């Protein structure tokens, strides 16, 4: 399995603007030492609560954010810090779909103009007739009529706009699309349609997807692998089946137990987390989850757990092996 995308120790800190005397006030630790890899044709989902750094990770991958440290590798070649033609070549291969379909399309441009932009920029099509043909094909590919091209975004519904945004991302025929909460703003039925559309496109083109979401039900439906993030760190990384069936990290278990089951007879034992996510301005020492973890010990407060393999393709950042019912806690070391 040759990796298309490799993230090595990706870190992003946002210094808050300095106070009146020029002293930096504080630093937001949005991403800390995130290492992931993604194969061709694979979907990797990034899940976690609001503020855990998933959107920053997405923006860092498409280079809308410059990472503080770490490297991004595309087919083994380092791509972060590139400029000019090299950056443009990177952009052609890595595209993004944004969360809010109402603000991700310029309200003053027709669909044609929005879609023509990447086609012209990446030198795929220039002549008017060729642009018309390719944009018609793209719209058809995302399930919209060809004549949608000459309308403005406000004439479309949220789901249709998200299809247009997907068409824009598909325009340069990329190898990878980062979907940042791409269906979160949509109604449930429309959500399913868009998710299925992404799946169909992936099957047809062999595209890789990074799917950033807080919605585990959607993630379970479309992903190959899942990375769970908490306060800027990856706490668990596993194949879909392993994650939803055999989650090891107490945080992942809490997340999964919070997914609603559409059956009133099922009474689940919910793992409730106490407290809120701590501020990323002052992340807790050691394991960042220790302030809310029912199993936390002195070790957790002092030592940051590394991602360690627990099974084939399954890694977890926890000092302990905790049985699914939480009764047995064994030291992993």
């Amino acid at each position, binding site marked *: 399995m040759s990796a298309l995308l490799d993230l090595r120790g990706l870190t992003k800190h946002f210094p808050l603007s300095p106070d009146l005397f020029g002293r930096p006030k504080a630093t937001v630790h949005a991403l800390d030492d995130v290492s992931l890899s993604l194969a061709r044709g694979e979907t990797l989902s990034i899940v976690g609560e609001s503020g855990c750094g998933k959107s920053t990770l997405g923006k860092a991958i498409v280079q*809308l954010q410059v990472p503080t440290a770490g490297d991004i590798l595309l087919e083994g070649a380092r791509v972060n810090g590139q400029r000019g033609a090299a950056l*443009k070549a990177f952009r052609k291969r890595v595209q993004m779909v944004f*969360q809010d379909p109402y*603000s*991700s399309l*310029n309200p003053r*441009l027709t669909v044609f103009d929005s879609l023509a*932009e990447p086609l012209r*920029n990446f030198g795929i099509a220039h002549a008017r007739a060729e642009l018309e043909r390719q944009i018609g094909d793209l719209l058809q590919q995302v399930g919209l009529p060809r004549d949608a091209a000459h309308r403005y975004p406000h004439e479309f519904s949220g789901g249709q706009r998200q299809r247009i945004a997907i068409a*824009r991302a598909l325009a340069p025929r990329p190898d990878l699309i980062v979907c940042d909460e791409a269906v979160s703003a949509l109604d449930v039925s429309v959500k399913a349609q868009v998710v299925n559309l992404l799946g169909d496109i992936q099957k047809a083109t062999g595209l890789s997807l990074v799917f950033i979401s807080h919605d585990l039900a959607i993630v379970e439906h479309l992903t190959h692998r899942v990375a769970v993030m908490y306060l800027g760190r990856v706490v668990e990384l596993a194949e879909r089946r392993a994650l939803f069936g055999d989650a090891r990290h107490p945080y992942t278990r809490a997340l999964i137990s919070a997914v609603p089951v559409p059956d009133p007879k099922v009474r689940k034992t919910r793992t409730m987390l106490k407290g809120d996510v701590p501020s990323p301005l002052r992340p807790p020492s050691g394991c960042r989850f220790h302030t809310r973890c029912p199993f936390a010990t002195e070790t957790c407060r002092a030592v940051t757990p590394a991602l360690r393999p627990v099974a084939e393709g399954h890694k977890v950042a926890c000092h302990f092996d905790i049985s699914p019912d939480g009764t047995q806690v064994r030291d992993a070391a």
Partner: protein
Amino acid sequence: MAASSLPPQVSAAPDLFPPVKRRHPWVALARRHPSIVIGGGLLLVIVVMAVAAQWLGTVDPNAIAPAKRNRAPSAEFWFGTDALGRDLYSRVLYGAQVSLMVGVAVAVCATILGLATGLVAGAVRALDAPIMRIMDGLMSIPPILLAVALMALMRGSVLNVILAISIAEFPRMSRLVRGLVLSIREQPYVDGAIVAGTALPMVIWRHILPNTLGPVIVQSTYICSAAMITEAALSFIGAGTPPSVPSWGTVMSEGRALWQIKPHMIFFPAVFLSLTVLAVNILGDGLRDAFDPRAGKRG
């Protein structure tokens, strides 16, 4: 349930959606944005009067007639004459040309200058602080004082008045544009354009600039009215247009010595100035409402 058992009221349903009345587009505009029509209409009348001044029964606004000086308004001299016997009606109408030209030219110059500096300050982080501190400096001086100071350095001419007032007025526009750019560039469609491979200058030109234009046009109407008042004030204190070019400010300035016994010398140019500024401001308010659907929409 059979269709026949439906209560008879159901047939009244179409009344809930009365047929849309087809109105003439001008009537529709007037109903939706009355201030645009009122302000624009009043301004149009004044502009037509200014442009058509020479065909509206005027005489040479600078022709002196000492025998007929200080006349009150009459059938011969509609607005009376001034201390040199010049026809005030002609001077007010020709003065409208100068005032409107200054207002429009300053609005255009200040908008272009403000857009250029504001876009750069908003888009290029390194230049933001230097440009904005210069604007703060310019804005800390009252516009009229700054214009007087600039006029003191230059010869009195309409062009120099336009330049001086533009320099005094454009920092406000610059600050507005910078603020707009800072908020627009956080919009996902700007990120989307960057990901789509668009270079920064093109992002500014295609995605940021067009979305600033609504507020910018509104602000430029306010600059236009402010510029007309500043021009009148400059001319009133003798730092504006040369005496050979009648503007409302110069006409009022010349009437100052006699205004207590001959109030018409100041009354007519002042009324025209006020009406023009009022028209531009009403138009600006209407445009603001039209561009910002969230701003109070009654009915």
